[in-house]
């Protein structure tokens, strides 16, 4: 039998691995890129700025309503949050794997 602490850590590792997959899937579902607004002759036009192979490409979206703009802004915020949390989960996995490597029951 593993020690109580190792048992908890093993369970946490399972959870973190599952979580990593969840965040990767959630990130995959979010629209890529961020909203860029250009003002041309007093009119605001929206573009989706996206990095493709090291270059930034602008995809024309047109004149978007406030609600539609907000959706893109929210998605950008959520994506940043998920990326940060994904990085946290990856660190947890590394730490937990390291902690479980020892043979001694704790």
């Amino acid at each position, binding site marked *: 039998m*593993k020690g109580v602490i*190792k*048992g908890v850590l093993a*369970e946490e590792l399972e*959870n973190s691995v599952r979580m990593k997959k969840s965040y990767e899937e959630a990130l995959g579902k979010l629209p890529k890129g961020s909203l860029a607004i250009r003002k041309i002759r007093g009119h605001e036009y929206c573009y989706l700025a996206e990095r493709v192979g090291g270059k930034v490409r602008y995809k024309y979206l047109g004149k978007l309503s406030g609600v539609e703009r907000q959706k893109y802004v929210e998605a950008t*915020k959520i994506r940043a949050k*998920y990326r*940060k949390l994904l990085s946290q989960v990856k660190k947890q996995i590394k730490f937990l794997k390291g902690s479980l490597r020892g043979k001694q029951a704790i």
Partner: protein
Amino acid sequence: MESRQFELCLEVLRRFNKEKLLDKIILIGSWCLFFYQYYFKKENVRFSAIKTRDIDFLVDRPSKIRGPVDVPELLKDLGFVVQFKGNKGYLKLDHPELILEFLVPEKGRGTDKPYPLPNLGMNAVPLRFISFLSQNTIQIKYQNIPIIMPHPANFALHKLIIFQRRIKKEKAEKDRKAAVDVLSALIECGESRSIIHAYNSVPEKWRKKIMKGLRESEANEIIALLS
């Protein structure tokens, strides 16, 4: 305890309280051990800090929750993502610091299907024996957040029953230790009667299981109290 995890737990509770959910759900699981310290109000009462990231809430059947509260949406900006557990469609909310789940008492023959909670935009895992946790509850106020939890006696006796059903031995050991710690704290704080009362409220079959668990733990003082 990691302060980031604790802060997140409080934020979840704060948001549930704002949506008037907290008076209809019961906090169960290892987070209770932390909040019980405020129930006992004795400086020397401290429980083991070993716990997983799970934060579980018990919802009664039928659920008393009326107004719709989209829980995944409510916690989305905190970074919680919806996770489907297993192939039956159980829902969990995952965050690197916390894993949130709802549980309901299992009734009748039991089922392996999740119990829908449409008012919360979630579903719940039906579990045997947890109705005992909602039979006798306490409420504490932490930073002005009212938190309902099972009475420590019910919490501990429930742990004594379920640790014997655990597949993972380490988890069983953790439950057994938590149960004995809480029961000892109750005795120390002069609440022995609440243990006797909770013990007498369960069916004979459960009492036998509790006694078996106590004998395994060599908790002679508690055995003497209940004999």
